[in-house]
């Protein structure tokens, strides 16, 4: 597989860019693999990549019922940050952020990771106190975070309305400067290409229809493209986790809710950081194309429709017009929804299931994109060893029995 | 001990506003009694009729009017008894008397909500700017009421006539906001 570089660009320019190699193969499934990863989104592909790269396990397949990155990977607002409250979360999200920082080099694929900074606004005294507490806790975990005054917020993002008379006055903000955005498709494609290069089979249009389980141990899966045996199976299917768990005969503490996002028409650069407000459930950044990428809140009902309620959009746009008055003169071009898998403590589940040899990685809820590298890294280690590693350990499914919950509702609830 | 209690509304001092065809006027201090009971119990219905002059409406989203009193349907076992200003004490005593011994709830909510009257040919158009109810005359007409949302505020809307005229009941804490919203929404109509 050719390495992407300025030389390959020049070489291919000479043949009018008509001879680029396909970025990954499209193989038929083999009868058996050492490890089978279900779900060809960012998390599943990252898992396969790190299995091959870090653990030398190449006899791996990723099976995907649709196409690569056709689910939440392509539907999120691409925000990357690691400012979580609890130690366990700080460990995995910060590990993820560190992987993001070297990801383009690691994958030889430009994922357009831009550390433009992520700002969380405080609109009232409670917000302000909570935000200060979080910044201290986050810094104690060695993660960068700082407090900005209203004047500093205005300097960072002049389009914000910081007037004390506004509907949502801005008292200040926390800022993680190492946070930012990345290009979501590129993340899926980059991981797919890198994994494929190391021998991983990526099989699209292959839907799991059942598990082969004998004496409580998984032996493979039934798919729309025939049965596939595997020694270990990892499930990374986000919103459809409960559906696959049901096939395997166990229940999950997960609910699948619609989460929406939208983009505006493109304008000249006016915002060079990410602005989030948990209080009004809105987050906004400007893409390289000039569009505002706007995240909305999630609906509270279960839905697999990839559509949310209009009232959510109406609510956040009302709030956004107050926060960023110029938005009132813009057009919104596209609006869509994804199916997010939300756990009771808003923290992911990475680890074992009641079925031996069957592992699950889900529950990333409204904030899975940022976790992609860290999640894949930890899940790969878990699948390779057959035991959760230190990073995945606290995020076991068993925590709902033991009560060792990792409550990140404040960091994760909606604002991502 | 002072025995003069001056009733105050958060909208005091606000004159009629809006547009010619969508006028808003506050009707503060209408007596409002929240009544709960079992409409399937004839004794309850009779006792309310004795006190108010009419039995509570059983049909959803309707209003029963008897003289100066109105009974607005809120839910299958809950109504708002509306009577003229200053009569809440009399009405509460009357209801408590006829309903004595029954399993009911009678709570004076006069000072919880105020009433904004919206009147004029464009009133419906003003409401439609911020209310998800189907206000088409075929669906919602005089003698009907509904609890819903108006510009994010919880409201109870009662249509009085075909003009149309609406009484909008809103909590004190939302009333200034809603008044300003209505005045703004009425702009452009005349």
């Amino acid at each position, binding site marked *: 597989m050719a390495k992407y570089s300025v030389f390959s660009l020049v070489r291919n320019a000479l043949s009018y860019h008509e001879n680029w190699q396909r970025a990954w193969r499209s193989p038929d499934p083999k009868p058996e693999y050492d490890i089978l990863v279900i779900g060809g989104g960012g998390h599943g592909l990252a898992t396969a990549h790190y299995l091959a790269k870090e653990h030398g396990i190449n006899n791996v397949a990723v099976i995907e019922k649709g196409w690569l990155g056709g689910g939440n990977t392509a539907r999120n607002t691409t925000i990357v940050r690691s400012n979580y409250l609890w130690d366990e979360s700080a460990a995995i999200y910060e590990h993820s952020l560190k992987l993001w920082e070297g990801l383009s080099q690691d994958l030889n694929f430009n994922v357009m990771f831009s550390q433009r900074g992520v700002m969380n606004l405080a609109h009232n005294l409670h917000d302000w106190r909570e935000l200060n507490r979080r910044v201290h806790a986050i810094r104690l975990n060695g993660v960068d975070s700082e407090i900005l005054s209203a004047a500093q917020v205005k300097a960072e993002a002049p389009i914000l309305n910081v007037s004390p008379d506004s509907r949502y006055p801005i008292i200040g903000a926390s800022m993680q400067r190492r946070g930012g955005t990345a290009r979501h498709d590129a993340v899926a494609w980059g991981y797919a290409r890198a994994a494929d290069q190391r021998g991983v089979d990526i099989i699209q249009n292959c839907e799991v229809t059942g598990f082969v389980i004998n004496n409580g141990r998984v032996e493979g899966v039934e798919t729309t493209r025939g049965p596939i045996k595997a020694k270990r199976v990892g499930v990374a299917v986000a919103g459809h986790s409960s559906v696959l768990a049901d096939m395997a005969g166990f*229940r999950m503490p997960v609910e699948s809710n619609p989460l929406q996002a939208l983009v505006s028409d493109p304008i000249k650069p006016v915002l060079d950081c990410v602005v989030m407000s948990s209080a009004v459930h809105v987050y906004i950044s400007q893409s390289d194309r000039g569009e505002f990428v706007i995240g909305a809140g999630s609906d509270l009902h*279960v839905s*697999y429709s990839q559509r949310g309620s209009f009232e959510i959009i109406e609510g956040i746009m009302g709030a956004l017009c107050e926060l960023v008055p110029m938005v009132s003169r813009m057009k919104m071009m596209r609006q869509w929804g994804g199916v997010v898998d939300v756990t009771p403590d808003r923290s992911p589940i990475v680890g074992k299931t009641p079925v031996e040899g069957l592992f699950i990685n889900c529950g990333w809820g409204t904030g899975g994109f940022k976790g992609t590298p860290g999640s894949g890294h930890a899940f790969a280690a878990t699948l390779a060893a057959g035991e959760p590693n230190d990073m995945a350990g606290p995020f076991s499914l068993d925590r*709902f029995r033991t009560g060792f919950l990792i409550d990140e509702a404040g960091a994760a609830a909606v604002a991502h | 001990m002072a025995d003069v209690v001056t009733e105050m509304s958060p909208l005091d001092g606000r004159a009629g506003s809006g547009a010619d065809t969508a006028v808003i006027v506050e009707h503060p201090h209408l007596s409002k009694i929240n009544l709960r009971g079992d409409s399937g119990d004839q004794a309850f219905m009779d006792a309310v009729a004795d006190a108010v002059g009419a039995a509570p409406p059983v049909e959803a989203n309707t209003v029963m009017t008897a003289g100066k009193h109105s009974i607005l349907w809120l839910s299958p076992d809950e109504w708002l008894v509306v009577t003229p200003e200053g009569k809440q004490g009399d009405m509460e005593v009357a209801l408590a008397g006829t309903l004595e011994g029954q399993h009911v709830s009678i709570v004076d909510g006069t000072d919880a909500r105020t009433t904004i009257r919206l009147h004029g040919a464009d009133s419906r158009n003003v409401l439609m700017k911020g209310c998800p109810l189907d206000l088409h005359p075929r669906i919602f007409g005089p003698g009907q009421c509904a609890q819903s949302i108006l510009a994010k505020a919880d409201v109870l809307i009662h249509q009085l006539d075909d003009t149309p005229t609406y009484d909008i009941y809103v909590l004190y804490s939302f009333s200034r906001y809603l008044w300003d919203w209505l005045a703004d929404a009425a702009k452009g109509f005349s």
Partner: protein
Amino acid sequence: MFLIDCPYCGPRQQTEFHCHGEAHIARPKDPDAISDVEWADYLFNRSNTKGVFYERWVHNHGCRRWFNLARDTVSDRILAVYRMGEKPPRVKK
């Protein structure tokens, strides 16, 4: 946006309602007598069905009554509305 037929008020826009998740989850009669696994199952695990799903809603900006919906979580089509205490109707997608 759903148009929900409140069993008491009639059809109203979803904005007036609030969803409270899966219906018909019975609290264990004697929590002390059951294992942690069973308690966790009651407390946290949810069917999260893809297909016909039974859920609780409350008309919190209207009559403030609770009721149940049967809804297809794939098409979001509402298949039945029934009152608290009633048995879930058999519905087809």
